[in-house]
């Protein structure tokens, strides 16, 4: 608490609250709107934030349940949202686990070992990481197209290809974990090794149990990144039942057939869990995201 305080604090406080509330209203409006739309009847209904004509039609369709309207006509679900969500989660879990394994082991080496080419490799990784995947899509497509002719489960239109392709994005995570490892004192591992533990054992039984928090953060970070990944999935996946949510969701708002209401329900259904996970873990995630730069 500051000892010296300027005058007229009350008026300024009020102003600050008003400004913040106004801004929050603007920011939250689209999100509330979508929730509201998901309960409105029909695909083009407009009106106040609290729906005047309440209907669960869009939610039933989002869950894949055919909906019978008041006039007796039955509406079939337009898209397999739950399947897309499942695809997204499947791909995200597997690829985040693999990313975690790859980045943890290499972060260990970068944090604790001395070897040739360490500095250039670390810097090189940061530079190459900046190259957006969109630009190498032609090459990735060619790679998986050819690979698929030899190994069918790694071809175009498979989740295997998408998972494998995500393994390139490890540099950021390596930096994050490396920073955490460096903050842990090495004397414990040293002591273990004096007592005859191998390098791997020191890593596996001493360092890893101490680093569970950062591993969780990196896993969640990789998970969210994978869920949101759009360009690679849009090129590598073709069939409707293979799509991930990020690629599938846009089909609701196709040029000539916009299903605004159906989209709203699907968006809330699939976006809410991810949003909650993010909010729940935001403290750690933000720390991980910014740790690369704030040091300077």
């Amino acid at each position: 608490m500051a000892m010296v305080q300027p005058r007229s604090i009350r008026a300024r406080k009020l102003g600050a609250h008003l400004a913040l509330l106004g801004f929050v209203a603007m920011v939250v409006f689209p999100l509330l709107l979508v929730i509201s739309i998901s309960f409105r009847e029909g695909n083009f209904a407009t009106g106040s934030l609290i729906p005047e004509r309440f209907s669960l039609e869009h939610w039933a369709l989002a869950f894949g349940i055919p909906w019978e309207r008041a006039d007796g006509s039955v509406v079939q679900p337009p898209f397999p949202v739950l399947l897309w969500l499942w695809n997204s989660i499947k791909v995200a879990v597997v690829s985040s686990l693999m990313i975690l394994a790859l980045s943890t082991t290499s972060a260990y080496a970068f944090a604790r070992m001395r070897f040739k080419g360490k500095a250039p490799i670390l810097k090189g990784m940061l530079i190459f990481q900046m190259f957006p995947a969109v630009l190498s899509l032609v090459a990735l497509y060619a790679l998986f197209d050819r690979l698929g002719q030899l190994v069918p489960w790694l071809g175009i239109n498979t989740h295997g290809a998408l998972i494998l392709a995500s393994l390139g994005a490890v540099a950021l995570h390596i930096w994050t974990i490396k920073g955490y490892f460096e903050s842990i004192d090495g004397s414990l591992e040293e002591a273990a090794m004096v007592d005859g533990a191998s390098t791997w054992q020191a890593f596996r039984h001493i360092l890893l149990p101490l680093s569970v928090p950062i591993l969780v953060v990196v896993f969640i970070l990789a998970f969210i990144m994978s869920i949101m990944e759009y360009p690679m999935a849009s090129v590598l996946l073709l069939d409707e039942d293979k799509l991930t949510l990020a690629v599938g969701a846009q089909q609701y708002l196709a040029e000539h057939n916009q299903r605004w209401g159906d989209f709203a329900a699907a968006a809330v259904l699939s976006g809410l869990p991810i949003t909650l996970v993010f909010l729940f873990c935001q403290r750690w995630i933000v720390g991980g995201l910014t740790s690369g730069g704030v040091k300077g």
Partner: protein
Amino acid sequence: MFVTNASRGLPRHRSRYPAERYTRWALRALTALLVLATLWLVVAFHLRGQWMFSLLFLVLGGSLAIVFGKRELMSHRYIFPALAGMGVFVIFPLVYTIGISFSNYSSSNLLSEERVRAQFLGQTYQAEGQAFDFQLVREGNRTRLYLEAKGAGDLEGARQLVSRPLAHAEAGQPLAVEPAQAAPSGEALGIREVIALRDALEALTLVTPDGTELKMSGLRSFAPMLPRFAENPDGSLTDRRDGGILTPDHEHGFFVTEDGERLTPGWPVAVGLDNYTSIFTDPDIRGPFLQIFVWTFVFAGLTVVFTLAVGFVLASLLQWEHLRGKALYRTLLILPYAVPAFISILIFKGMFNQNYGEINLILENLFGISPDWFTDPALARTMLLIVNTWLGYPYMLLLCMGLIQSIPRDLFEASAVDGGGPLTNVFRITLPLILKPLTPLLIAAFAFNFNNFVLIALLTEGSPDILGASTPAGTTDLLVSYTYRIAFQDAGQNFGLAAAIATLIFLLVVGLSALNLRLSKVKV
């Protein structure tokens, strides 16, 4: 720094514990298996003539064997998997892309030269000679092919021919047909069944008693068919129908007729710097490219400025110790960051819709205007900036909050003692102190928005289009989405040109990240 045994390369003794020995052997077996698997891929790609991929896996398998085979490289074993991932999925695609940028690889020049040649040699035409109508006549579980000459005129050979009974899948060998007096007894197959057997029928070659070869020429007829092209020793093809010569043009990757007409499909050939020169000299490409280039910089720059401004102001407000409910504000304010971008962008796409979107409804009611967000270039760009500021300010807010917190409190006290107001505090204390550590993050944010493909792809898809462009180019396209559209959306699918632009972007990005590394003084 503490250094482990591994990096000193000390010998490892045979372990006393059986479990550990077994684990080591299992690891060795796994390594050997992986090496064998990559070797198999190397050979398979090599046999298919795809030397680039063969080389990729040769390097991968080779380095795997070396790193896991030599004890001195113990440390490298830990980083190998991650490096291999980056190598195969980031660096290789990059090298491949740069390679493509020097070729004319596109949808018209896609197959290898051998495949193109084989495709031409596989073409047939109907030669002079008697054509026959055919029927498939069922006989038990086999079918006979029955041919009847077309037309009424006299014929040297037999008018009616019949084959021996065939199993359905039979093909390949030339099949002799014998003269017959009448149609064989039995039910003829309907057109549906004939279509189902089409592939097998097309593979058949029939030989009449006088030695003429017949091939299927339509769904109801067989006729003497000849390969349309004959290969000459010098590599050119002769068109048997009109005697024209097709010469392979290795400079452009097409077969060319004597009139200079190029026949598709062609094959990819190296074209040197053509793609790069066309970006800068071809007016139909240069115009849109420069326009998009400038817009990309403006977009990324303005996004950083706007998000930083909003984030900084909010962070300063939230840092004020007299304010209550900061945690709630904070949570609500970072909501846009927590909602998956692909969902919020689509929400905005619906909200900005010109006909029924909520934003135009509100504007219509309040001011009686209804802007064309998606068809007017300036408005479309404004919309992108609004949406991107909404998406991006929470990141800046979080950064600024973290940095403001690290400013010593007594600086503000000193300022208050000297009579400084809040504005003085912001411009004389807070901003100067956080700007330096913020710079590398701002550059990273700039680079990210420079390549913000998802926003463009989901919100505007680049539209409205730039008129008079020979490639698909829109007024809201960024360089990345422009590249994506050239490669994947255009009918021409000009991979070579797309790769050239990608290479240019890569050079820019490398410059930015090198600058970034220097500014942030990353310690390794």
